[in-house]
């Protein structure tokens, strides 16, 4: 595996194929927790952790269970079940053994179950026929891209608090328009990688 290709996969998944801004996955938490920088950082950490774990598990599930037994049609059901139970499991383990970490990330975990980005990445990994190393790089890239977009939007929204915004635009509408402008900026990366 060439390092160059891995680098390209990583950069593409962070920038030109940014999961939130170009693929619209994970919009719910994106809008939900981007009001404050602090929560945005916490959410990003939780997403990176769960996404990586879920991608690895679903990868083995796909190539060692679903494909050999010819039950590829159960992909969606098994993947989402794995992700949901994984999140619950992580929550339990964290609460018991890493209370400090749990205090920081815990409240975001239930939100992640319905985060389309996690399932989306698991499905994309399979769809793009990545091998194990590529899959890891891709997943980390996507999570980084998610964190980048989330943190960017959170900083922008913190500033917007002090701006004079026409009443109908306050809250979500202006957040969407801000995200739209961010997306325009990210489009500049298309074709670079």
């Amino acid at each position, binding site marked *: 595996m060439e390092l160059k290709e891995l680098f390209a996969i990583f950069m593409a998944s962070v920038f030109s194929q940014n999961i939130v801004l170009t693929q619209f996955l994970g919009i719910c938490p994106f809008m939900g927790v981007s009001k404050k920088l602090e929560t945005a950082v916490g959410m990003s950490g939780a997403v990176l952790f769960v996404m990586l774990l879920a991608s690895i598990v679903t990868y083995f599930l796909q190539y060692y269970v679903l494909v050999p037994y010819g039950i590829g049609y*159960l992909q969606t059901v098994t993947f989402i079940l794995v992700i949901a139970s994984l999140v619950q499991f992580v929550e339990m383990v964290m609460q018991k053994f890493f209370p400090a970490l749990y205090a920081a990330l815990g409240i975001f975990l239930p939100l992640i179950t319905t985060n389309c980005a996690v399932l989306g990445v698991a499905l994309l990994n399979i769809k793009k026929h990545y091998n194990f190393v590529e899959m890891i790089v891709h997943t980390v890239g996507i999570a980084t891209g998610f964190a980048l977009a989330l943190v960017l939007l959170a900083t922008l929204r913190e500033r917007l608090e002090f701006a004079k915004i026409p009443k109908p635009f306050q809250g979500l509408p202006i957040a969407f328009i801000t995200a739209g402008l961010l997306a325009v900026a990210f489009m500049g990366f298309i074709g670079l990688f």
Partner: protein
Amino acid sequence: MKGIWPILALTIVAVISGAVLSWIWDKTNPIITRMDREKEEIARRMLVVPEDIDLSMIPSGVYSWPNLGVKDRNGFESFKGKEGVQEYLLIWIDDLKKVHVKYNVPKDKAKFIEKAVEAINKSMKITPQICGDWDVYQLFKKAISSTVNFKKVLVLADGTKIEASKDGFIGKDGQKYVVKGDKVFCNGKEVKGKVYYIAYLGGKRVAAVFKVEPVGYSSKLPTLVAATFDGTVLGIKILSQSETPGLGARCVEIKEGEHEPWFQKQFSGLKVDEIYLTEKDEKPGKIHQITASTITSRAVTKGVREGVQEFLKMFGKEG
């Protein structure tokens, strides 16, 4: 009991779900597979028929339209040579007239067919212009394409060519190669290889059709490529894609008033060193990219180019 019940409940639901889905899968999978195979077979045949249809290309004899379990709309399975094509068209005219009465479709279509039948009698070349109507032209193309004979050749990575016989692909040392989908197996092990469909039209070897499978933005893009033995692309057909709607998915878009996807049509008639994008590519070529979908455009272009290069490497000396 109390501790087990939640897990038991989840298991029950999961098992029921699996059972329901496997039942649905059993019902839908044969349809999906058949559709894919049929689509591929028809595309393969249509790709090798030249733009100007020369009826003298059709020899006499019986030919059948790929019949993969479904009869076509007239229940036709085969027809005989040139006369058969005529006969087929006449029945089609009759059919159309009935449809006109029922649905009040413009009557031009029958006129066009009559014109085309006249062209056959005068041994003229059938072109889209002569037919004056796309559906009629397609009908001719379909009729001609049914007379195409394919010889399947399996080419292994080291260049060994194995022609298909009645028993499948048998190597020189008696080894049997099994082609499943896009994979080739030998004694249960996967080996690298690719199947080329060598097309014979009217007894002449005209082209080869093979499949390339570039990876686009969000999906594989299985694409059939038809090329002549001097390396000119006759046409390509993207068999399936799930690229971003409105962007990469436009690689199969058909513009209003046209009949073929504009992006794919650009490949027809190109030589290997012309199959590059007009910009943002290793060197300037002749393929205009889909706006804002560089990844998809580049993937298809590169896939087709590399496919043709490989084909020339394997078959070029014979050309």
